[in-house]
């Protein structure tokens, strides 16, 4: 192919020039780390002051087995926990529901009641370890269970620290684990933000997530734009509730993908901080610097992992993790080499954690804040990403906000088109995926974590015993009270806490809410 014909673009399709110089970065002064608009990072000393939290997303089979994995990870030097729940839990079904057949414990830990949550955190001091929970539609129920376990451990809610994903908008857009329609769902999210502002000052009640948007096939700019616009939607709802911006905005956290295009990713994180800082100050009139600082967790791109030649995935993950670190992430998950096949084995997850430790302790990249700032290419790419994302944000504003945009299928269609375009490029050989459409060779089989139906049987039996043992009168009373609160406008959190303490199950609680809110049916946008 002649040089003139070949297109050089980022993985998202953004054209890249042969070389960048001072003229490209003219007028693009990124400022200083720790200073508004935080393009170069939210801290002056960045990783000198505090390394990122090494937080491997983990959960499988029963809460008993997952609890053992947590103890193992903490012994290996992991510094925070991140809970993966199974699909029935994510969808608000108990392990013994018909829809749960074949799914219990497959994609995460099965949690149907407070009893399971007690087992999940057995021997883990919730006053010291920060815990992130990937749960969305029933997030407030699982959070109520978490707070109840903290209380049992004698830990004051003021001290509990961690993160609830609780980002329902990206479920409608990308991940599709929704239960209720958008508006009642937003009310539940707002309930948690309000409750957190009053009772759990060290807890992040939401992690506004671009990760799943990107995994669904979006471009880097779409990830940036839809995530930040989702963030603004949550802010609008909290303000509408009567909260003061600086009372809750410092606790909004973000979760971004760390994909394969190294510089495009670094630019994305920098642009994200800039857009958010400016929006908080100018769109919302925040006064506190803490409200303006975008803090984010990053996870390397699951969708970039290949089934073919799985050991190559270690290399992909290392490069993606380096992008997240150079982009100033506060916490990081590195994927395991076997995750194109299954949930990770202990061996694979250890290599993934060691990858972060090599970056943190051997590579030297943590010695100085934002070592890549001032690169002509990076500054230009940051500025272009910011402008392109702002275009999308304006379009969504023009539609009346994120909920009307979702109802019109706008972000969904944009993502579907981008993902199809990418797949076609791979198909045509325009994008090389090593080991898949070029450099193929025979694979050596790897050991995989197997989850059979034993976990499901164990969970179902435990649940039957719980239903027989608990005070069913108290359960009914608490569910009735919850239903009434849901029909009105009160904050549902105190009622949810009472239901979980009565050992009402997740499925029963979600059924009570389904009876009031209804369920969401999506129109599929191909």
């Amino acid at each position, binding site marked *: 192919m002649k040089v003139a014909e070949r297109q050089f673009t980022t993985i998202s399709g953004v054209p890249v020039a042969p070389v960048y110089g001072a003229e490209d970065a003219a007028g693009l002064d990124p400022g200083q780390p720790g200073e508004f608009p935080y393009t170069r990072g939210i801290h002056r000393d960045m990783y000198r002051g505090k390394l990122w939290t090494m937080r491997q997303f983990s959960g499988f089979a029963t809460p008993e087995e997952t609890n053992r994995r947590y103890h193992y990870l903490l012994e290996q030097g992991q510094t925070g926990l991140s809970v993966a729940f199974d*699909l*029935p839990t*994510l*969808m608000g*079904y108990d392990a013994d529901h018909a*829809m*749960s*057949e*074949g*799914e219990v414990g*497959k*994609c995460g830990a099965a949690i149907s009641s407070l009893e399971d949550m007690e087992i999940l955190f057995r021997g883990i001091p919730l006053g010291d370890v920060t815990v992130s929970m990937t749960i969305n539609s029933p997030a407030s129920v699982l959070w109520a269970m978490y707070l109840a376990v903290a209380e049992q451990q004698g830990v004051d809610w003021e001290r509990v620290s961690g993160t609830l994903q609780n980002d329902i908008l990206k*479920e409608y857009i990308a*991940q*599709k*684990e929704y239960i209720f329609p958008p508006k009642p769902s937003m009310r539940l999210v707002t309930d948690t933000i309000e409750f957190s502002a009053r009772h759990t000052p060290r807890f992040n009640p939401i992690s506004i997530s671009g990760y799943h948007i990107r*995994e*669904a*096939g979006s471009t880097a700019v779409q990830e940036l734009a839809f995530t930040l616009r989702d963030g603004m939607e949550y802010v609008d709802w909290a303000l509408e509730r009567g909260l003061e911006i600086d009372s809750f905005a410092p606790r909004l956290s973000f979760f971004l993908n760390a994909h394969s295009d190294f510089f495009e990713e670094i630019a994305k994180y920098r642009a994200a901080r800039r857009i958010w800082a400016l929006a908080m100050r100018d769109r919302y009139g925040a006064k506190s610097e803490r409200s303006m600082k975008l803090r984010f967790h990053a996870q390397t791109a699951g*969708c970039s992992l*290949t*089934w*073919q030649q799985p050991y190559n995935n270690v290399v992909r993950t290392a490069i993606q993790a380096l992008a997240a670190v150079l982009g100033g992430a506060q916490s990081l998950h590195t994927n395991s080499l076997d995750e*194109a*096949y*299954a949930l990770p084995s202990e061996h694979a997850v250890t290599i993934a954690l060691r990858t972060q430790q090599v970056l943190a302790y051997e590579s030297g990249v943590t010695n100085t804040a934002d070592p890549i700032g001032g690169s002509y290419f990076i500054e230009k790419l940051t500025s272009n990403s910011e402008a392109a994302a702002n275009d999308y944000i304006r379009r969504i504003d023009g539609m009346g906000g994120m909920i009307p945009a979702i109802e019109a299928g706008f972000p969904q269609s944009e993502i*579907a088109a981008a*993902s*199809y375009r990418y*797949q*076609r490029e791979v*198909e045509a050989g325009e994008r090389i*995926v090593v080991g*898949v*459409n070029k450099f193929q060779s025979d694979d050596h*089989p790897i050991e*995989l974590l197997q*989850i059979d139906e034993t976990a499901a049987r164990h969970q179902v039996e435990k649940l039957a015993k719980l239903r027989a043992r608990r005070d069913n009168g108290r359960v009914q009373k608490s569910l009735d009270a919850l239903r009434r609160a849901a029909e009105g406008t009160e904050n549902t959190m105190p009622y949810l806490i009472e239901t979980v303490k009565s050992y009402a199950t997740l499925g029963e609680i979600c059924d009570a809410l389904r009876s009031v809110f209804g369920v969401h049916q*999506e129109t*599929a946008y*191909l």
Partner: protein
Amino acid sequence: MPRPIRVLVAKPGLDGHDRGAKVIARALRDAGMEVIYTGLRQTPEMIVNAALQEDVQVIGLSILSGAHNAVVPRVMELLREKDMTDVKVLVGGIVPDEDAEELRRQGVAAVFQPGASLDGIVNFIKKTIEVS
């Protein structure tokens, strides 16, 4: 002109990861097939009923959650009950080799694992439907 091949693309189980299903649906449509996409969270009964109603020759099941061993055999059983064994069933997603073998033993025409090419899937369907 011969009647275009009709395909039902379905997402069984609780898994919401529909990137693959949507890409496949578009690719089959671009290849001239008539594609019906069921949307998410379909039970085996809903899928087989839709296949009957829509009179499709092919059912494509996309499963990434590991629930294939529970879901696919049930679909095959229902097809047998309804005398629809001429409908070809394809499975795509995260299916380990030994499970893929078992699914083929149960009558699944093909299992496409991650990295399978779109053209490969299109050609497989065209070839399978032509000969039958």
